[in-house]
């Protein structure tokens, strides 16, 4: 992400530069994305994410209800080297939203260490060194806060074990 676009995002969301040495030191590694991540959903597929200039991660699609259901969730989880790297990557993720109405979540949607949301249907957050993006991918919309919290509970459990 070039410096100009990074600066735009920081100013747009009024994000203060986090002083070095104050970021959380915990690191979550080797998270397995399988059908137990969201027990009420059916895991359709999991792809490793190997994009240039991005941390490694996974992209999974989940459906609920009858086969061919229109309730579909997309969950992407990236594993960064550190919490500071996760915050940097979060800026890049924010830069992918065309809507100017994506806002910092400070209410019930405030999942993880820092979160951004578009209404009830898209949530982007960082927890330690991980960045999570959960969105609707099907025609029948579902709120994503609940699944996001389920995932975050799994992450904090992994964090505690680490």
């Amino acid at each position, binding site marked *: 992400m070039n410096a100009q676009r990074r600066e735009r995002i920081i100013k747009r969301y009024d994000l203060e530069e986090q002083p070095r040495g104050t970021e959380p030191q915990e690191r979550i590694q080797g998270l397995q994305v399988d059908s137990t991540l969201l027990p009420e959903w059916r895991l359709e597929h999991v792809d490793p994410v190997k994009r240039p*200039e991005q941390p490694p991660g996974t992209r999974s699609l989940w459906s609920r209800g009858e086969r061919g259901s229109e309730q579909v969730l997309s969950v992407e989880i990236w594993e960064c080297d550190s919490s500071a790297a996760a915050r940097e990557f979060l800026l890049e993720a924010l830069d992918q939203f065309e809507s100017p109405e994506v806002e910092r979540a400070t209410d019930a949607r405030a999942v993880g260490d820092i979160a951004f949301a578009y209404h009830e249907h*898209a949530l982007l957050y960082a927890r330690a060194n991980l960045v999570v993006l959960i969105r609707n991918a099907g025609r029948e919309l579902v709120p994503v806060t609940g699944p996001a919290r389920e995932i975050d509970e799994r992450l904090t459990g992994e964090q505690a074990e680490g």
Partner: protein
Amino acid sequence: MSVRLEAIKFNHDPSSATSDAFNIRRNATQFVSVPEWQHGVSVLPEDSPAAYAMKETRGHTITIQAQFRALDPGLGTVEIRAIDPTLIPKPWPFGWLLWPLLWILRYLLRLFFGNVLGEVRRRKVTFPPGGLTGIETFRLKNVAIQIAGVGVRTTTWRWQYRRSGGAWTDFETTQHRIYVVVETPKSPWNQAPYNSGNTQLPWTEVLDYACRWGLLARTADAAAAGVTRGVYNLGPAVITYDCPGGGSTHYSWGSFDCTRFLERLKGGVGLGLYVNCTDCATILSTFANALGADLWQSRMEPPGAPWSFGLNPMLGIGSAVWQPCCGWSGFSYHEVAWKGACTATEEVFDACLQVDGDADPTAPPHVPLLPVSLRFGPVGALLYRDRLATPAGRPHCEPNPASRQRRIVV
């Protein structure tokens, strides 16, 4: 039957595309091996694909290479050819008055369905004592690539041989999936290195759609226009704009997940229903560049505060409602397929939305206009920028040519 066709090579020179087919693969994981047609292996046309570029082959004689086996030990030297069985035979028994109609009918049939590779010109082939020839080069005749334009068609050949002074005898009928593009594909597609590890060789699974969307095009712009319409018309059934998700990128953050997008085109889940402008720009430019267009994916955005630009009413992909996209106050950025340096003087192609094409794009009535070869333009020129952004938003809708890229295909 005394002769058997063993193999045919269409892409017999990987370093060139002037007299033979250019380098292709099927998808991310499957290569197209040469010879493309093999006895006992190739049954359906799609088992034997080959792709040709109009520009590179213009003025050149196209050749194929083939290998034969004599089933009769005493065969010696014969003439071999392949004719087009789809042509209506001469003489036509209904008189000369209908001949012009017949000529038009044959032209149309060949254009849409026929042998763009014409026929295989006869030549002598000598069978050695073991019965298996070497790789023999044949010239094609009546090739219709330049007439037919972009498309994906089946070429059918009826192979025949004859002994000196004898009658022609059929020995094989082969069918081949032939793609015609305007020019050899542009980046992210490439022609080298030519090996199974190069995933950026043009994919036939992409050409299956691109050639249909760009059907009959003879220029890169016409091909890109067809692809723009083809992508936009995928909405709302296959893809639709990501209003629920704040207009986020689903298929093309970093690299373009073409594998999952093709899955979506074929009726699968893919990466879901939703796309944003980055996805549309990437899909459009990648598929159009497979036909020989030379487009980039590039952004327009405010250089500073305010952090968005206001939008005129539009029809987002998959939507039938004239409104600023999703009813938002504006876009924080927008991305399109763009020519050249991706500045205000270059043309854009936008498959993500239709703008209002009349004299006042800010208010009803609205005339749908899909941006195709539309110059971005300065403020006040009533070109792409003015049709996309409100009068107050136009100064903040600035090209950002530093963002131009061509995402690799995975």
